[in-house]
């Protein structure tokens, strides 16, 4: 076999470098393009009254105040349900089942399949189960619970892999000190897995805040101020969808709403991160 010359190898190396740099550039440029488009077309319409007032004329004028409130309420319901259940299942999977047993593998595969299901299917499920079967109707509660179902699989998987990656020496150390299993989990393992939990939560918040399809059939379209969790409320993503698809002349408001949505997601993520950081550092350092 003829040996390849050094210059040939160098050329192949250079081609490869250029190729992967092009991929990275493509992703970055796409992201900047999308964000730039929204900022340029949306930012100029942002005023204080836009953020606080009720929409009027099907959203063409007025603001998004009530929609922001509905969005945040839906998100609170979703996270309030998903975080405790998700952490519980993750702890159970990583600490109470035999790793790689048939049962835990089955649960793991199920979660992976659930994580890949399109959100519209969650929407139909939420409509059938929460809205109709449980009688919650088109409401913030059924929307939030549907979103919780949607973000649970990925949240559980991230937390579980974080917990499984925790150094086993710490488990043995806690055992050898006569610490109960629950104390070891609560005081040692969960704080050690904090980065993974934060990552899972950020993924969840991102998906839940940006969700449209799962909410159309569950929390509905009503753009009035919700009086309770049992009222219908329109989420920001649904509002954007409605403005750009169904309302002629709603483009400006749609861009402005998209701008608010992206800002909201960034804000929520940084807040969640700093809150959890603070909470865990209390567990880690405070006495």
């Amino acid at each position, binding site marked *: 076999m003829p040996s390849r010359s050094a210059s040939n190898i160098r050329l192949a190396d250079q081609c490869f470098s250029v190729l992967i740099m092009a991929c990275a550039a493509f992703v970055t440029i796409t992201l900047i393009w999308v964000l730039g488009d929204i900022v340029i077309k949306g930012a100029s319409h942002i005023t204080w009254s836009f953020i606080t007032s009720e929409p009027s004329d099907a959203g063409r004028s007025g603001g998004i105040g009530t929609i922001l409130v509905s969005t945040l309420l839906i998100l609170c319901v979703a996270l309030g349900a998903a975080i405790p259940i998700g952490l519980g299942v993750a702890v159970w999977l990583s600490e109470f089942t035999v790793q790689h047993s048939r049962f835990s593998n089955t649960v793991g595969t199920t979660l992976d399949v659930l994580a890949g299901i399109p959100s519209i299917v969650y929407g139909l499920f939420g409509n059938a189960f929460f809205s109709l079967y449980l009688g919650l109707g088109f409401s913030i509660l059924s929307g939030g619970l549907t979103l919780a179902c949607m973000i649970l699989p990925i949240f559980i998987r991230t937390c579980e892999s974080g917990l499984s990656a925790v150094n086993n020496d710490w488990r043995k150390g806690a055992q050898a000190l*006569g610490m109960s299993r629950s104390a070891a989990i609560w005081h040692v393992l969960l704080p050690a897995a904090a980065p993974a939990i934060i990552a899972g939560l950020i993924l969840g918040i991102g998906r839940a805040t940006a969700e449209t399809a799962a909410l159309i059939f569950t929390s509905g379209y009503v753009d009035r101020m919700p009086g309770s969790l049992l009222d219908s409320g329109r989420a920001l993503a649904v509002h954007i969808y409605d403005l750009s698809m169904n309302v002629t002349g709603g483009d400006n408001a749609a861009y402005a709403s998209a701008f608010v949505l992206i800002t909201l997601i960034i804000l929520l993520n940084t807040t969640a991160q700093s809150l959890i950081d603070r909470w865990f550092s209390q567990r880690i350092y405070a006495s």
Partner: protein
Amino acid sequence: MTMQPHSPTFTLGQIEQGPPCCEPIPHLSIKGLSVRYGAQTVLDEVSLDIYKGCITALIGPSGCGKTSFLSTLNKMTDAISHAHVTGSIHFDNNNILDAQTNVLQLRRRIGMIFQKPNPFPLSIERNLELPLKEHGIKSRKVRKEKIEKALRDVGLWHEVSDRLNTSALALSGGQQQRLCIARAIILEPEILLMDEPCSALDPISSGIVEDLIIRLRGDYTVIIVTHNLAQAKRVANYAAFFWMKERVGKLIEFGQCQHLFDTPQHELTAAYISGAKG
């Protein structure tokens, strides 16, 4: 601040070396102890007494069941689903291996130090506080006192007293291991099990930890697994030599450390300590 854990100014704390253990009072009485993992027997019919206040070294080649032996003594083998332990270990007139043994209480009385230092990824103070809280010491003041005493005992106090709230993982390996020893003795155990506590440390840190172990003699009954024969000779009062016969670990010889090294009774022991085997 630059820490110099190995500086010559290093002083150990207040633990006073206990009385020499010339009177062998059994603290643990082990009879016919066998350990199986699934179908594989790793330790076969081991019987010996561990004497109170003494340091007993377990020596022998890798894989001869020393660590398995050690982890039966505080029932760490319980966590291994396919481990099967038979025989008896008498401690305070109770057989540790009985199913009704309160494992959490047992581990408070029999502490363990691992080969790799394993401080929790928490602050130095919280590492010591957690076990105290777990075992019901509610008063913050008492906990603070105990933490200071334990850190003084292992010679860490003057090195870390100004940064108790920083992460324990930022300490050097030797400091981490001393912190782990402090975390074990803060519960005032009677027996300390040590699984090669110096083997992951550099020679100087290892020397410091070894000095500390010698200071524990008298106050604590120490059982130490070591591959370092010179260390066994330096620290131990008693030595137990394990060997593997047909892939099954067996106790070959047990006796006073000096006797075992100077006048071994068994030819395997003689070959192992002279370096001809193992």
